[in-house]
């Protein structure tokens, strides 16, 4: 086990910069998830830590050792690939044993470690099968087994669940989490599924366009998004964003409606801003803003309302979620009252968070 430190890391392919200087410190035993939209550089960062991609500038340390020029096999890191990359010509046991065989471990040690990993992952009865004789979830487990037997300092996962169906994904999610709680190996995990990130991570790193937007615990990111991008990326359905400006009596939306603001915002009167409110932080009250219902999506336990706030010049889409059922139909006008304590304010130009 080991900590991982990335200092001002840059990567370019030819002249195309992909990572623009990423710094993060991952503690020993931590489970850190990298999230971000497709193409933002998550895999690139992970593969640089693995040693599969060279470093253009900056520094990667594993524990106290700078590994910029250390080949993958000497980094003591195991990686689980998105497509698992199980060797098709080897059995499950051989797949798991491969790294140990290359290390010239003794037969007894190999058998013992493979058995142990198989027991952890429930693969005991499949050791003699070939990868093509396994289901997606089983292959996923073998890929993890291959990582476990090495007892590495760090586990890297690159979207390991994206090839599984929704149900299996939920199951494997908790299996991976349980595994981490058991082994306590430092883990860096890439996904673009924010639910996966929220439910599994100790800390989340949100990336966009080769830049780190924010790093924090899942609830930090939910409660205190550093900017509009994180605000819209974390949380589902996404946070509502209402452009306007800060006025004396509250937030004046571009539609002309006045929305409640905490008193601390008064200091910023006149500033152009974006008002952020999560769909789950609004109540139905006559004093709320009048919105016209466009669609109603009941899931049983919740009701999702897609609505529109209309002004003379513009109109803004607003999503609201309520526990239980709501008696509303498309075309109805309802009144949504934001919970003042849950309001976020962002600078209109920079997108940065304004209020603490």
């Amino acid at each position, binding site marked *: 086990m080991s900590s991982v430190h990335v200092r001002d890391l840059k990567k370019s392919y030819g002249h195309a910069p992909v990572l623009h200087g990423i710094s993060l410190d991952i503690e020993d035993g931590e489970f850190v998830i990298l999230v971000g939209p497709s193409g933002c550089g998550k895999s690139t960062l992970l593969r640089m830590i693995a040693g599969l991609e060279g470093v253009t500038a900056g520094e990667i340390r594993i524990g106290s050792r700078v590994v910029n020029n250390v080949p993958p*096999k000497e980094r003591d890191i195991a990686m689980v690939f998105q497509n698992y990359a199980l*060797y098709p010509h080897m059995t499950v046991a051989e797949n798991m044993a491969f790294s140990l065989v*290359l290390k010239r471990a003794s037969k007894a040690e190999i058998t013992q470690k493979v058995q142990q990993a198989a027991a952890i992952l429930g693969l005991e009865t499949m050791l003699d099968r070939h990868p093509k004789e396994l289901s997606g979830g089983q292959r996923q487990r073998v890929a993890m087994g291959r990582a476990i037997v090495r007892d590495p300092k760090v586990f890297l996962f690159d979207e390991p669940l994206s090839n599984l169906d929704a149900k299996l994904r939920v199951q494997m999610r908790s299996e991976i989490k349980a595994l981490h709680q058991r082994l306590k190996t430092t883990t860096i995990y890439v996904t673009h599924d924010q639910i996966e990130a929220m439910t599994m991570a100790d800390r989340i790193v949100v990336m966009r366009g080769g830049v780190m937007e924010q790093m924090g615990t899942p609830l930090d990111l939910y409660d205190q998004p550093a900017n509009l991008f994180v605000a819209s990326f974390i949380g589902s359905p996404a946070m509502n964003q209402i452009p306007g400006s800060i006025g004396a009596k509250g937030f004046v939306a571009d539609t002309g409606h006045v929305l409640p603001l905490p008193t601390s915002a008064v200091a910023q009167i006149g500033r152009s801003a974006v008002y952020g409110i999560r769909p789950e932080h609004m109540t139905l009250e006559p004093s709320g803003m009048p919105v016209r219902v466009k669609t109603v999506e009941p899931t049983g336990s919740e009701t999702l309302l897609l609505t529109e706030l209309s002004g003379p010049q513009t109109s803004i889409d607003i999503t609201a979620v309520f526990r239980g059922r709501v008696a509303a139909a498309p075309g109805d006008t309802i009144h949504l009252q934001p919970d003042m304590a849950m309001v976020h304010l962002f600078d209109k130009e920079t997108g940065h968070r304004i209020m603490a």
Partner: protein
Amino acid sequence: MSGFNLYTRGDRIFGIANASLMLLFVLSTLYPFIYIVSASVSSGFAVSSGQVVLWPVDPTLAAYKHVLSDRMFWISYGNTLYYAIVGTLASLIIMVPGAFALSRPRLRGRRLITFLIAFTLWFHAGQIPFFLNIRDLGLLDTRIGIVLAFACNAFNVILLKSYFESIPASFEEAARMDGATDFQLLWKIFIPLAKPALATVTLLCLVTRWNGYFWAMVLLRSEEKIPLQVYLKKLIVDLKSDDGFASRLMTAEYSFETITAAIMVASLIPVVIVYPYIQKYFTKGMTLGGVKE
């Protein structure tokens, strides 16, 4: 509506024409084979006088008896086996690592090298310079010369290279993470995964070596080193021009025609034995480079 016949008249005519044409092809490749077998077990006189058309006439094993007691037959047969087996091994030892290296993007200058190799598919110096080259290397009339001169074949290298390239990069990456060296990567991952391509290339090498004739005839002088095909040629040409020998044979139960037929059959025996087992690779080889799991 006249029914739900899936096949129109045109389809049926096409089908019949197609089948007849195929049958014609099969017969035209099969016939020489049958003729050779029949000739080898017919009497010399029957063959020389043109009585053998399809089936054996005056069946006799005399030609085989003669061939099997011929010292040169065994020597040249042994040579052919040597050239086929050692030559194929040498080819694989040279071409597999070469193709593997060429298939890795991190090899500098791989485009240029690949181009130069592919270039030889269409353009080469010609036979005289090639001969002079072999001569100046001191490889004339040596077994190793025959083995080395044809060990590397551009088509096969490119076939192997493409196949290695079609193997997903994540296998290499996984193996690197597992601690494999380049050599282990090739030996433990890529060679097992490239079995279909390797089988095809092995087969192509073996067949080319087995039938190799022209260069063996040009480069080898001593009888002790010539392969079966060259010996066969020698028999046909030399004996035919040797009137005395020919007439002596004519009177016997065998003629040089039945003898050459018997040698041809003998040279085909290993191929006929092995073919059923490797046949699938012939067809597989044609479709290589497709998707790999």
